[in-house]
């Protein structure tokens, strides 16, 4: 996994609460057996109408948001299905950071497995970022994971919270299966103890 340290990126807003994983990547695209290539289907039904025409009002279709790498949205982002295709699509499209007041648990967890940084801010801070993004074409945010600070060119500086283990995980781009396997002896001992106690499988 690619480490995440710093990002200086264009912000694209998706101004909705409860953005669910069916919206992020509709089910007809879950049939692929690869991890790659999902970006073209991100927010598919919001980007294209039923005839395949571009929906110009949707922000990701606007020229000013092309090349965005920071996604700004509302509460309970990523709710619904556990499909990791959702973060795969977000990452493949080009986003590395998502900012919202809250995230659904499984989606939040899936982000870290893919080198995406989800940042939780207060409703007021998110409101403010929406205003700033809407007001200025080309609005960018600098995401400094080392120091856990978000900043912009206009002097905004917001510290954000993140579990230290998760921070290290992203900074170093760790392989967590490898980390668990370091405890191979403990896992084997646990299995032996349970088998001896007759705990059913």
């Amino acid at each position, binding site marked *: 996994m690619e480490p995440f340290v710093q990002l200086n990126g264009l912000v694209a807003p998706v101004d909705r*609460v409860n953005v669910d994983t069916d919206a992020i990547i*509709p*089910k007809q695209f879950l049939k692929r057996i690869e991890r790659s290539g999902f970006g073209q289907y991100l927010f598919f039904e919001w980007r294209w109408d039923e005839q395949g025409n571009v929906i110009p009002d949707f922000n990701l279709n606007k020229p000013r948001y092309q090349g965005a790498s920071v996604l700004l949205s509302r509460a309970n982002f990523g709710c619904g*299905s556990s499909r*990791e295709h959702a973060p795969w699509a977000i990452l493949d499209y080009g986003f590395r950071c998502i900012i919202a007041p*809250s995230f659904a648990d499984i989606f939040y967890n899936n982000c870290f497995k893919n080198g995406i940084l989800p940042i939780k801010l207060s409703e007021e801070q998110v409101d403010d970022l929406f205003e700033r993004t809407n007001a200025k074409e080309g609005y960018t945010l600098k995401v400094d994971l080392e120091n856990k600070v978000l900043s912009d060119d206009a002097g905004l500086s917001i510290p954000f919270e993140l*579990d230290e*283990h998760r921070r290290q995980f992203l900074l170093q781009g760790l392989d967590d299966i490898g980390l668990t396997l370091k405890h191979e002896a403990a*896992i084997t001992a646990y299995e032996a103890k349970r088998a001896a106690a007759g705990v059913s499988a």
Partner: protein
Amino acid sequence: MSKQTMFEKIWNNHVIVAEEGKPSILYIDLHLVHEVTSPQAFEGLRLSGRKVRRPDLTFATMDHNVPTKDRFNISDPISKQQVDTLTTNCQEFGVKLYDLNTIDQGVVHVMGPELGLTHPGKTIVCGDSHTSTHGAFGALAFGIGTSEVEHVLATQCLQQSKAKTMVIRFNGKRQPGITAKDMILGLIAKYGTDFGTGYVMEYTGEAIRALTMEERMTVCNMSIEAGARAGLIAPDLTTFDYLRGREYAPQGAAFDAAVEQWKALCTDEGAEYDSVIDFDVDSLIPQVTWGTSPGMGTGITSSVPVPENLPTENERKAAASALEYMDLKPGTPMTDITIDYVFIGSCTNGRIEDLRAAASVARGHKVSPNVTAIVVPGSGRVKIQAEKEGLDKVFTEAGFEWRDAGCSMCLAMNPDVLKPGQRCASTSNRNFEGRQGRGGRTHLVSPEMAAAAAVQGRFVDVRTWEFKSEVKA
């Protein structure tokens, strides 16, 4: 020893390594696998030269892509590839697969409990958010992403941070016509779709104790729609009676010994939860959703809400956008909403009791000429049982289509898909935009409410239903 909740007991029984400042390493007792979220995980094992650590604790089936008519003929080549890939992966890695040739094949969360794989006190995961269903047995069961599927395949463990605990006390008694589905939909309509985020919910109270095992599964199934990864119900006689004699349940004396262990899992008297919610069941009425989030629901005697009357700007915007998508006018009585389609099935409501309940409403009636109605058993075993009881005849005589087991229209990864603009009364769990097909409009209801809507062609209060006890031969 300090007093513990059931969640804490199960958690502590499974923590292998707990280091300060790091997630714990939690042992997983049962891993259920399906075709959609596993191919990349098996590929990951292959690329890193790893094996499945405990194939004996890993069970697979195909459900999402499976057609419910002419099931062996998967016409979509990408669907077929995904199903075939699961077969190949299970063969290569030695995982037990219940495929389309077995009667156990079905929706993975219907199949597991039926086989007796789901036991109190187990940790259970699956690459599917409705894994919360298994919490009905007092198992700690939650959905995971594909990276974690690979993690569990490789290590039989997960790195997990301990969740907070919440108790939902369902107080009082259900009135006639009120189902487990109404309990969970009512809860979510009141508290929203994210009040459970970060929590494991335990459902207690006399209304929970009174539920059958299958009804408990309906409640726990939709914990995720409240934001909670897992829901728990303490095991009791209902649980033990359900499990006794099932294929993977302990047998004979071992079963009795297991029951003693399972009883000890219950939350200690006086143990504290991080959050407490009391929910009154006495006054609950049949629920119908009107919007595009499971929390956008109301009672059948109410009307579509007026967005301007909602408390916050975000709620007003969300409701207005949902009503536009749903093509509903504020203030419309729920009983005035006409429908085109009915789907009875899914991991929420595709079990034998759900089909019995729907059949009792449908018996002797006819599906409205404006409605297409399908009944999809949750598994091959549910289908056989229903046919033994003659439920298939009740449905087909009433004009419902009787299908084979699968996820079907719950998420439309198979040929069962709504057309744009079609409105569906669905017993499934999600009413998201496009969930049942692009432009499709989903209203979540109980099996009884769905069957009644099929007959009337619009939503109807099932409490006023005319039940016909016999069909003329």
